[in-house]
C-alpha cells in the first residue's frame, strides 16, 4: 500500500466512504472541513491541501507498526498476542461509590481520579452515556465528573474530536480514555506532532479499553429506541463468553437480547481490526472472564507502571494475579482477532502482500497469516 500522507479527498475514498472508518474522531474538529455528526464523519467543504493531518493520523491509513511502537515503547511492534506488556494483573476499586457505578472493577475510574487528585493530570477526555443512551465525549476535571463516565457504552464515539477541539494553545495535562483505534491514532500523533492543534505532549496518560467490536451509533441507537424504554435503562452489558447476550438493566429488571441480534449493528470496520487489548496505551483495561466485579489490567509503559504503583500504595485498588487459564484465554482471543482481521484484509485487498493500512514486518505477517 502507498505509504505517503495524502489529502482529505483520499481519506474519504480510502477510509470514510469504504466502511473502514472507526469513528475515532482523530480527523474531526481539527479543521473546519471534517466534523463528526450522528455517527458519521462529514466533509463540509473541499480542502485543497495535498497532505492533511486528517489522513496522517487516521488509524486506518497506512501505519508502520514498528515505527510507532518504537515511538511509544522504544521497541519494534511486539509479536506477543497482547502487544508490549510490562505486567498483566487483575484489579478492583476499593471505593464503594465507584464499584456501585462501575461496569466491572472500576479500575479506569479509580486510576483517573487518582491521577487528577495527584495533579499528574488536570483533565481527562472520556465518554459518558447521555440521557438518550448515546455516548458523548466530555472533559472531566474532578473525581465527581470522572464518576459520571463510569459504565460501558458499546457504541462508537469520536472521542479524539474533543482533543482537537481544545484551544491550540491550551496547556491542560490530559488523560484520554481510548478505544484501540483511538490509542493507535494518538500514537501516530506522538510520532508526527500535530500542527495547529493542542500539543500532543499535553497527553500524559492513555488508558485503553479492550474491544472486540463497536456498534454503529446510528443503526444501533435506532434498535435501542425501537426495543427499549430508554429512560428506564440504567446500564448495558455484554457479559464475557459463553454468555452470548446483550443485557439492558432497567429499573424493572434486565432485558436480554441474543448477541446474534446485535451483531448486525457492528461497525463494518471492526472486521479489519487487529487490536483487542488496546496495544498502544499506557494501561489497558477490560473485563475478567468468569470473575465478576474485577478488571483485567495490562501495564505497558513506565507512566502506567508508576500510576498503578501509586494506586496500590494508596490503597485505591486491590489487585491480584490473572489466573493462568484466563491469561491463556485472553491471549488466544487476542490472537484470533489478529488472524481473523488479517484474513479479512487479504480478502478485501485480494493480495497477500497488500495488508491495506497495516504495516507489519513480513516475518510477523507470515506468522499471522499462516
Amino acid at each position: 500500500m502507498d505509504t505517503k500522507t495524502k489529502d482529505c479527498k483520499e481519506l474519504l475514498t480510502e477510509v470514510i466512504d469504504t466502511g473502514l472508518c472507526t469513528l475515532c474522531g482523530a480527523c474531526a474538529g481539527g479543521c473546519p472541513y471534517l466534523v463528526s455528526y450522528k455517527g458519521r464523519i462529514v466533509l463540509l467543504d473541499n480542502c485543497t491541501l495535498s497532505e492533511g493531518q486528517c489522513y496522517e493520523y487516521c488509524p486506518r491509513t497506512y501505519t508502520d507498526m514498528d515505527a510507532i511502537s518504537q515511538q511509544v515503547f522504544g521497541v519494534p511492534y511486539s509479536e506477543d498476542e497482547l502487544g508490549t506488556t510490562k505486567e498483566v494483573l487483575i484489579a478492583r476499586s476499593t471505593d464503594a461509590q465507584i464499584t456501585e457505578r462501575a461496569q466491572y472493577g472500576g479500575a479506569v475510574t479509580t486510576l483517573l481520579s487518582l491521577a487528577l487528585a495527584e495533579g499528574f493530570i488536570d483533565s481527562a477526555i472520556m465518554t459518558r452515556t447521555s440521557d438518550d443512551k448515546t455516548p458523548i465525549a466530555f472533559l472531566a476535571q474532578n473525581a465527581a465528573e470522572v464518576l459520571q463516565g463510569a459504565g460501558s457504552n458499546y457504541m462508537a464515539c469520536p472521542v479524539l474530536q474533543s482533543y482537537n477541539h481544545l484551544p491550540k494553545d491550551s496547556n491542560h495535562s490530559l488523560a484520554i480514555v481510548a478505544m484501540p483505534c483511538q490509542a493507535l491514532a494518538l500514537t501516530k500523533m506522538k510520532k508526527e506532532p500535530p500542527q495547529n492543534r493542542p500539543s500532543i505532549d499535553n497527553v500524559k496518560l492513555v488508558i485503553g479499553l479492550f474491544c472486540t467490536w463497536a456498534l454503529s451509533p446510528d443503526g444501533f441507537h435506532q434498535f435501542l429506541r425501537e426495543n427499549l424504554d430508554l429512560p428506564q435503562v440504567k446500564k448495558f452489558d455484554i457479559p464475557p463468553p459463553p454468555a452470548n447476550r446483550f443485557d439492558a438493566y432497567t429499573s424493572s429488571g434486565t432485558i436480554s437480547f441474543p448477541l446474534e441480534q446485535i451483531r448486525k449493528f457492528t461497525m463494518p470496520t471492526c472486521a479489519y481490526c487487529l487490536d483487542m487489548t488496546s496495544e498502544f496505551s499506557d494501561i489497558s483495561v477490560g473485563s475478567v472472564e468468569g470473575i465478576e466485579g474485577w478488571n483485567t489490567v495490562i501495564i505497558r509503559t513506565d507512566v502506567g507502571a508508576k500510576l498503578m504503583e501509586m494506586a496500590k500504595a494508596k490503597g485505591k485498588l486491590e489487585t491480584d494475579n490473572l489466573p493462568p487459564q484466563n491469561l491463556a484465554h485472553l491471549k488466544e482471543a487476542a490472537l484470533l482477532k489478529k488472524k481473523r482481521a488479517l484474513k479479512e484484509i487479504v480478502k478485501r485487498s485480494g493480495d497477500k502482500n497488500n495488508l491495506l493500512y497495516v504495516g507489519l514486518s513480513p516475518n510477523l505477517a507470515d506468522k499471522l497469516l499462516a
Partner: protein
Amino acid sequence: MASIDIDAPGTSQLFIGNEAIARGALEAGIGFAAAYPGTPSSEIMGSLASIAKKMGIYAEWSINEKVAMEAAAGASFAGIRALASMKQNGVNVISDFLANLVMTGIGKAGLVLVSCDDPSAISSSNEQDTRPLAKWLDIPLVEPGSFQEAKDMTKWLFDLAEEIGTICILRSVTRIAHARGNVKLGKLPKKEQKAYFDQIHDLRNLMPTKFMTVPSALRHAFAHLKLDKARETFESSPFNYYLGPDKAELLIITCGSCWLYSQDAVKALKVEDKVGILKLGTLWPLPEKLIEEHLNKSRNILFVEEIDPFLERSVMEMVANLPEGSRRPTFYGKRSGHMNAYGELNPDLVIKAIASILSVGYQPRDIEYAKKAEETAKSYVPERMMTFCAGCPHRATFWAVKNALKLDGRDGLVTGDIGCYAMALGPAGFFQVRTMHCMGAGTGVASGLGKLGQFGFDQPVLAVVGDSTFYHATIPALINGIYNQSNFVLMILDNNATAMTGFQPHPGTGMTAMGEPTKVVSMEALCRSLGVHVEICDPFDLENSTETLLKMIADGSGPRVVIMRRECELVRGRKEKPPYKVHIDPDKCIGEACGCDSLCTRVFHCPGLIWDKKTGKSKIDEVICTGCGVCADICPQGAIIKEAA
C-alpha cells in the same frame, strides 16, 4: 434621479430613458401607474412614485406584474389614463390577461404597457424579446430610438390607444432605459380627473365597439380591424424616417438603440454615401407601404435589432407576399449570421457586419497596440466574481444551508428563485442553489420533487425564496404543497426589501411606493394561517440556523417554513453604524496551513476579507467590511476578532 415633474415646457432636461418615459406619461395626463420592480424598467415607477402625490396621480408597486397590469386596466375602464411598466419577464406573467384584454378592448382612457428588455440578460434570468408578443397577441407596438422619442412616443401612445381602443406597447432596452440624454419638455396637463365605470355590455350586440367588458373569441376579428387602423396611422408616423442616399449599396432597417449604433457604425466606416438607414419606430403592425418604398433603395438589406429577428422575419414575410416579379433583395441579419442572434449588440458588431457586406476594411487602431492594450487591461483588472455584499445575510444563510445539508447526508438540494440569492448558484452561496427559472418557480419545482417519495426519492428539498418573491408568486405553490401534501421546506429570506432591483417596498415592509405607511402583510401569520409550521431564525446566528434547518429537513411531512430574517445590509448600513469592529490577529491566523486552508477568503468569500499573498494571512478590508462579525464565528482558529463598536 432627476425630477420628472419640472414645469418648464420647451426647456431641455437630462433624463435617463426611463425618466423620459415617465415624463411622457405625465405629459399625457395619466392618473394611474402600476408596476413591479424589474431591471431595466424600475425607474419608470420609481420616478413616478416620487412625484405622484405632488402631481395628484396614483402610483403603486403592485404585488406582481399581473396585478399591476390588471389594476392599470381597471383605471382605464373607469376613464383614467393608466400605465403599467415591467421587464420582459413581467410581460410573460401578464400574457393571459393581455390576450383577453385584446378581445375586450380598453376603456375610454388610454392604457399603455411599457416593457423593458434586457439584451444579454445582464440582470435577468433569461434573454427575451417582447416584440414577438405584439405579433402573437395582436397588439400595436412601438420602440423609441432616442431619449426624446422615449418621451414623445409614450405621450402619443395614449392617444393612439384611445383612438383605436386597445392597449399599446412601448418596448425599450437597457441602453435606452438607463442611458442619459437631453429631452425637450412639453406641457404638463392641469385638469381634474373623474373616475367612473359606465360600461354596460349587451351580449346580444357584439358590434365592433371599442370596449366590451367581456372577452369573446368573436371579437378576434375586431382586434384585427383595430390593428389595420393602427397600421394606417403608422404609415405616416414621424417616428419612422430614412437617412441616407436615394440609391444605396446597403439599406439598414433598424429600430431602438440599434439606430444609434447603426449611425455610429456608418460614420466610423465613412460610408454615409453608400449606406442608408431606415429607422422604424412603429414596429407592429409593420408600416408595410413605407417599408416597401424603401426596399427599392437597395438590393441589400441589413437588419439591426436587439435580440430576436423580429423586423427581419416580418419584412421577409412581407416580401414573400409581394406581387410576382417583384425584386427580391438579399437579406442580411441574424439569419445570415451577420448579426449575432443572441447577446447585446453594440456599434462594433454593426461595423463588422457592414464592413463584411460591403467588403470594406476597418482598422480603428494599430494591431500591435490593440493587442498590448488588451493584455494590459487584463493584467490590471482583478478577477472579481459575482458575490453578495459584505454583511449580506444571504451569505450566512447559505453557509448554514450548506452545513445542514452536508450534515444531514442525504444529498439534499435547494431549488432557487429570482433575487440576489440567485447568486447562490455560484461560489457566493457555496453552489447551494441547484435550479433557477422564474418568480415562484423554486417552490413549484420543490412541490413536484416533494411528491416523488413513491419513486424512491428521499433527498431533502429546500425551496429558497426572497420576501418580495414570496408575495409575488410563491403563495399558490405553497398552498399546492399543503393541499397535495408535498414534502419540502420553504426557506424565505426576509431582508425586508426588494433588494436586487433597488430596495423597492413590498407588502411585508409596511410602506407603499408613494411613501405612505400601510398594513404589513405578515408572512409568518399568513403561513401559519395555512396550518404550516413556521420557524423564524436570524441567519447571523449560524449555530441556531443550522440546527433549525437540520430539524426542519429531518422531520415532518408536507411543507414546512423557515424564515431567515435580517435586514439587507445596504438598507441597514444607511441607517445605523456598524455593530462590530473586526480585525484579524496575524499571530493566530494560520492561513493556508492544515487546520484552515484559508477558509475565510477561499470559501466564505466575503469581499471584506482579503488574502495577503505576502504574509500568507487574511486581512480585513476596512473600507468594505460592514462590521457584521459573522466571519469571526467561522474562523477555526479564532483569529478573527469582533469587538462591539
